[in-house]
């Protein structure tokens, strides 16, 4: 198989080349000077009205859907060679990218997170309690993004948020998604050639933690903030550079769970629909997303919970918009972990195999390993409230059934660290304009500047 070549985008311009060899793939030579926007000059889109930006993004969305030049198809094919996600999921993710550039959704984001376009386009005047008149602007930022590669949508989301805030943006490509951001930005230049918005973006790969690159780029002289996805390993080296003038906006790694009350066992039809909803939540992006449910706490007897597990396992093997019917086969350590539990009946019971359709482990305590690759640990609890002790600040989404429990537990869940409580089955409905990991990204991206009397 030939080496993959990864194109870069430098201020809107697509650069091809293979001068830098990383073994499994090659990229053009990095030119660090080209990757920064000198600070004394305003960024190329700082003064472009938001309405114009949104028009361009909507056109980009159409371009992504039509793919007139075959750029997206090419990126999708290349992604399949470098991204561990099952091919079907990559296909479906690529098919939905264009829909993220929805006008109403983007307007909602600006309205919801910043209170309107006025504060982006100019200065919003307000009067303070002391009687002074103050003008306020959500000023365009200079951001470097370490993008997550476990879902192609993350790149699209980053580009939308970046464009809406008008700043300049350097995207560091992850090795598990080397092509999506570049392809979308190629589209941006196609729908708005030479436009300031297109010139506001660059995307490049360097080995995460490469000091020769990061020590030059991660400076307050060039960028205001580092927007980092991923955990300690991602930002371990970047942390060295965080300091006054160069701050961190972190989308930390998260685990999501489900809480299912005994009402699920009211009758067969209810149980079937609850298992269906639980399976949907578990298989989001074939369980590679932070919103995918991994632990499901179920209130019931062993017999009841085992019936649920069997149904859940069956329904995990169903093809959906964001999940394949069968993912990659399980390999390595997690197989050993689950194999060991198979023999520990009755304390543990395993439903399903390792072929990738779905595997469910029933237990009385959460398993020691991180359920991944379409594996769900169903933990039997005597009362639903017993699940709360397993909630931490790393718990992102909690899908709850029934609705009454959702309302009853939301404050306790929030106190324990949860950021999002949803009706069971709705984990996948991540919507722009709502808080993400407990904050409003656009608010954190911009620089709030005052003009005071």
């Amino acid at each position, binding site marked *: 198989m030939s080496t993959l070549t990864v194109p870069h985008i430098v201020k809107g311009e697509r650069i091809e080349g293979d001068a830098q060899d990383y073994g*499994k793939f090659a990229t053009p030579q990095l030119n660090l000077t080209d990757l920064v926007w000198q600070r004394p000059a305003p960024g190329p889109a700082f003064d472009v009205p938001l309405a114009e930006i949104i028009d361009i993004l909507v056109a980009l969305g159409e371009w992504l859907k039509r793919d007139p030049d075959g750029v997206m198809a090419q990126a999708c094919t290349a992604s399949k060679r470098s991204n*561990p996600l099952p091919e079907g999921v990559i296909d479906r993710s690529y098919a939905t990218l264009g829909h993220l550039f929805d006008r109403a959704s983007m307007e909602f984001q600006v309205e919801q997170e910043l209170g309107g376009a006025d504060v982006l386009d100019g200065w919003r005047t307000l009067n303070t309690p002391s009687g002074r008149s103050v003008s306020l602007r959500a000023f365009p930022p200079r951001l470097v993004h*370490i*993008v*997550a*590669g*476990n*879902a192609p949508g*993350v790149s699209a989301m980053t580009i939308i948020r970046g464009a809406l805030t008008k700043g300049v943006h350097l995207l560091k490509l*992850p*090795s*598990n998604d080397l092509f999506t951001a570049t392809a979308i930005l190629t589209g941006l230049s196609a729908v708005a050639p030479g436009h300031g918005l297109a010139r506001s973006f660059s995307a490049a790969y360097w*080995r*995460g*933690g490469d000091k020769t690159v990061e020590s030059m780029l991660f400076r307050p002289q060039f960028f205001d903030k580092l927007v980092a*996805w*991923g*955990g*300690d*390993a*991602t930002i371990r080296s970047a942390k060295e550079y965080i300091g006054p003038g160069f701050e961190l906006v972190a*989308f*930390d*790694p*998260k*685990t999501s769970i489900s809480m299912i009350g005994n009402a699920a066992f009211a009758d067969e039809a209810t149980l079937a629909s609850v298992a269906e909803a639980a399976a949907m939540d578990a298989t989001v992006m074939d*369980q*590679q*997303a*932070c919103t*995918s449910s991994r632990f499901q706490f179920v209130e019931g007897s062993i017999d009841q919970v085992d019936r649920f597990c069997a149904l859940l396992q069956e329904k995990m093997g169903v093809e959906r918009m964001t999940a394949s019917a069968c993912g990659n086969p399980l*390999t*390595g*350590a997690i197989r*050993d*972990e689950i*194999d*060991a*539990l*198979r*023999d*520990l009946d009755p*304390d*543990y019971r395993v439903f399903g195999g*390792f072929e990738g359709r779905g595997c469910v482990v029933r*237990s*009385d*305590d959460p*398993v*020691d390993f*991180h359920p*991944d690759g379409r594996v769900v640990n169903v933990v039997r609890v005597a009362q639903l409230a017993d699940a709360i*002790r*397993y909630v*931490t*600040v*790393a718990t992102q989404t909690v899908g709850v059934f029934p609705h009454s429990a959702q309302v009853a537990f939301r404050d306790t869940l929030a106190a324990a*660290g949860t950021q999002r409580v949803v009706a069971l089955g709705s984990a996948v409905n991540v919507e722009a304009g709502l808080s993400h990991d407990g904050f409003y990204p656009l608010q954190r991206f911009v620089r709030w500047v005052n003009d005071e009397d």
Partner: protein
Amino acid sequence: MVDHRRELLDLIVSPDAFGQSAEDLAPLQLAAAQQVFEQQHSAIPILARRADEAGITNIASLHDLVPLLLAHTAYKSYPTAFVEKNRWDRMNHWLSTVSTPDFADVDVSGVENADQWIARLGDHGHLVLATSGTSGKCSFLNASRHDRALKERHFKHVLGWPETIPANDREVFWLGPIEGPNSAIEAGIISRDVWARPGGFHALITEPLRISDVSQMAAFTKRMAEGSATPEEIAAFQNEAQAKGKAMRTALAAYTDTLLAHRHEPIILSGLWAQMLQIIERARELGVPDGDFHPQTRVNAGGGIKGVTLPDDYKEQVARFFGDVQRPGAYGMTEMAQMLPRCEAGHYHRAPGLILLLLDESGERLINADDGLVEGRFAFLDLLYEGRWGGLISGDKVMVDFAPNCACGRPGPVILDTITRFAASGDDHIGCAGTIDSYVRGVVGA
């Protein structure tokens, strides 16, 4: 039927143990692998399952072994909840799934911690080693008394290799604990039993290593991650670790004085790099010059560089201080009995009873070659074990030279001295899905 396994294992006592060509050994190793598989396949549930899933009924080629290799994590695949809740009967059940014997008849009444559990199994002839991994969750590996005897025999023939054979005529300085169910300690015990003259063994730490202390640490780490440990408890835990470290340094200073008194004899010294530097510091205080050791002294320095701050030139400092002594090396791991000693050319040689399996990075494909240098993931079938399956896939990235002969003149294949971990050189895959451990400090600093 010819006992090929026995035949290969017994070769270790021959002066020509490492002189067998790969070509000659290959058919014997394959036959021995088949023999071990036949004996253990139905007795070890995890092996039986692997074989069933892969449709393997006999070992016709080394490729058939690949799906049967276990990861080291197989030996810590028990639920922590069993330990936390003192369910030692359940732990017996679990251990049976990764071992040849069934431990159902081992009475665990009265057992309250892992040390007592291991002792109880020991009373029944099951010798369990535990690892005290940094993650806090211990692995438990079963071996029979016979396995232990064969392991000691192996060590006896490789510890002094290629220069000498241990003959119970040395002063032995062992800079660690000497009692406890741990493979490093077992190596210390064997070292004592084969090298030391009567009364000539000096262990730095005389109190036993307790696995339950490790479990306690794990439990505490878990509480920290959950957020139920208070800042004061965390501080107390850290202070205790620091106090222990300080006490250890004080003890080492006194111990060093005894060690230095024997420096003109051919002693055996084994310890961690950081400890060697402390010894040097003490020696300097006492005015001991560089290179003042007996030339037949054997100095084993290793491990322990994770989380310890060492000067960049620590290896040079140690080399300079000890001067012209023997510096043996060996490549091994808890899961392996037949460790690989290092030859004059600096390469690791495998004993006839150890089947070397070089896999691709994913661990799914055998890439053993007939000649040339090949890099891959190290795996092996250790034919020595009857108490458990000896097939394991490691996390080590190794370079194997499959050339018929090593630079030392003995036959290959050999492993080069460039062993690293695979995890350390991985791609920068970035994802938004993860656990609290991946970014919240849940680990107690020592």
